[in-house]
């Protein structure tokens, strides 16, 4: 039977998973929000993913890292239900993804794609309000409650001043924040973010992750983000999934996975792994290719 009837509480704060506590240290005791078991997938006859498994608990952030073509985006599309795996399964809050219809998935899981293109001149507020669609009946207009949620999402991503601007007039980084705010308006329990920081400068990268840290603590939101930047992954993620050629090359805490040997094998280049003196997080520096600058 499809899970359809439940109109989520849909609102702020209380969305879902009551067993979640606001204590960030209690990660291990929380329910698994999304789980993948032995996923294999591909396009046409071309395999892209081999036997990938993962589990992300409420409030936790998993960073998916690996070189281009490692299958990171494909993995995210399968987790979101946009692509069917060849084998293996995805469980959302303990039930197979196939048990939910599209709208029921959309009330629990939000996805922000790498590119955020819009065909017509919708305003920023209209885009963010679209996040409320899975919570509304077919002919319902957004209520004041929906507007309040959109307003809060805009505010959280510092977009209030842009609310009435057409989305096309925004820069790539601003547009990314609009789509993150739209995902937030969905009031999801799980957020899937495909390269959320690709167009952002350093300040906004830090702020985006700070916002998602708040959301993870406040609402127990689980976050799965593909990231190019290993240092950001080490700094912000609870755990990392290192991929190569569609297979898992490492899965665990950044400290356990980001070893020089692992990264050298995956990226096929020399790397130096150290500690960021300011944060204590793992820091990864490229070491291959360039010749040391001569000082003599």
């Amino acid at each position, binding site marked *: 039977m499809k899970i359809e009837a439940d109109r989520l509480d849909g609102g702020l704060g209380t969305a879902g998973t009551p067993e979640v506590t606001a204590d960030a240290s209690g990660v291990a005791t929380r329910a698994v929000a999304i789980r993948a078991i032995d996923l294999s997938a591909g396009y046409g006859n071309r395999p892209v993913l081999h036997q990938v498994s993962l589990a992300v608990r409420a409030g936790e952030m998993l960073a998916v890292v690996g070189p281009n073509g490692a299958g990171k985006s494909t993995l995210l*599309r399968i987790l979101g239900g946009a692509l069917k795996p060849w084998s293996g399964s995805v469980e959302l809050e303990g039930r197979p993804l196939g048990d939910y219809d599209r709208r029921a998935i959309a009330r629990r899981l939000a996805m922000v794609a790498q590119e955020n293109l819009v065909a*017509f001149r919708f305003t920023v507020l209209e885009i963010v309000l679209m996040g409320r669609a899975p919570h509304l009946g077919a002919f319902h*207009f957004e209520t004041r409650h929906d507007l309040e949620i959109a307003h809060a999402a805009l505010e959280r991503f*510092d977009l*209030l001043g842009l*609310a*009435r601007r057409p989305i096309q007039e925004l820069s790539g980084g601003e547009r990314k924040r609009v789509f993150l705010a739209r995902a937030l308006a*969905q009031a999801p329990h799980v957020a899937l973010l495909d390269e959320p920081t690709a167009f952002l400068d350093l300040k906004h990268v830090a702020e985006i992750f700070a916002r998602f840290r708040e959301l993870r603590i406040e609402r127990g939101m689980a976050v799965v983000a593909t990231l190019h930047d290993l240092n950001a992954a080490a700094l912000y993620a609870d755990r990392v999934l290192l991929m190569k050629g569609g297979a898992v090359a490492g899965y665990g805490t950044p400290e356990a996975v980001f070893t020089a040997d692992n990264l050298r094998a995956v990226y096929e280049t020399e790397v130096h792994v150290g500690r960021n003196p300011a944060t204590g997080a793992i820091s990864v520096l490229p070491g291959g290719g360039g010749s040391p600058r001569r000082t003599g």
Partner: protein
Amino acid sequence: MSAPATVRDDAPAKLVLADFADAHLTRARMAFMLIALGLLLIVVSIVAAAFGSVHIDLMRAIADRSSADHAILFGARIPRVLMGAIVGAVLAAVGAALQALVRNPLAEGGILGISGGGAFGAIVALVVFSRLGGADLAIPVCAFAASLLSTLAVYRLAQVDGRLEPFTLLLVGVIFNAFWGAAIMLVNSIVNFYFTHSIIFWLMGSFEAPTYREVAMVAVLGTIGFAILIAHARDMNLLSLGDDEAADLGVEVDTVRRTIFVATSVMIGAAVSVSGIISFVGLIVPHIIRTAIGADHRMLIPASILGGAAFTVAADLIARTVIAPSELPVGAITALCGGPFFIYVLRREGRKSLVL
């Protein structure tokens, strides 16, 4: 970026909900705009019924049932205005829906060659069934079938690596138009010249001498189509973000796409079978409405229905008065407006809104 909104140049004070009523579609704004467009349609229709190549006295036409004025008003003008209104409404609503589906503001039944396919189907049905009988039914059915085939073919052929490529879509449409035009000329050259007038009528698009039966047929099919499109208006909003994005927001994309393709094909088939190919209405009207009132399809679809009706009735009024007592096909008027308009939209919005 921090939760208390930082002060920016464009946000002098903390903005509250009430400040954003103009930044999204509200029920009040929607009601106001639809009433305004409805009044416009009524005014245009009355003017179009009152004026024509022959002067009539409206009072006498209504009061005296035996007058020539009465015969002209009820026998010619009113069915023609009704036909213009319903066909224009269909064309504009279909244009808006197709644009959402293919995420391209330049998509339109005429431009994509869908109307051309419908006209070819109608002409073949006319030629074949005028001998066998049943042409009245066969013409709209064949027009619908050929429209649907054209829609699906254009949609398939415009996909490059699984993505709908906007310029490829328009090129495929151009090719389809040329192809159907040639196919129609081919039929024209091998059949009895008795059919030539009808064939030219379909090629040019005209509301010459419609019957109330034809008006009723398009009105019924059109109304069903409007209901389906309006029911999917929010899905169209979400489809503007992309297929995957719409699916992520709960839209059953394949089902919605199939439904809208069939609905729009039936609507175009019905319109073409009574009035031929009338291009650009579905481009001009939704574009003006989007620019003036916003992109939300919950407003755009009903506003295009009313606006398309008013626009087409006005275009037909020009078509039958500008060179009176002779008349132009209304399709010539819409194409004369639409050609330059297409270029204007392409130049102004090209790179900005053809996004995929």
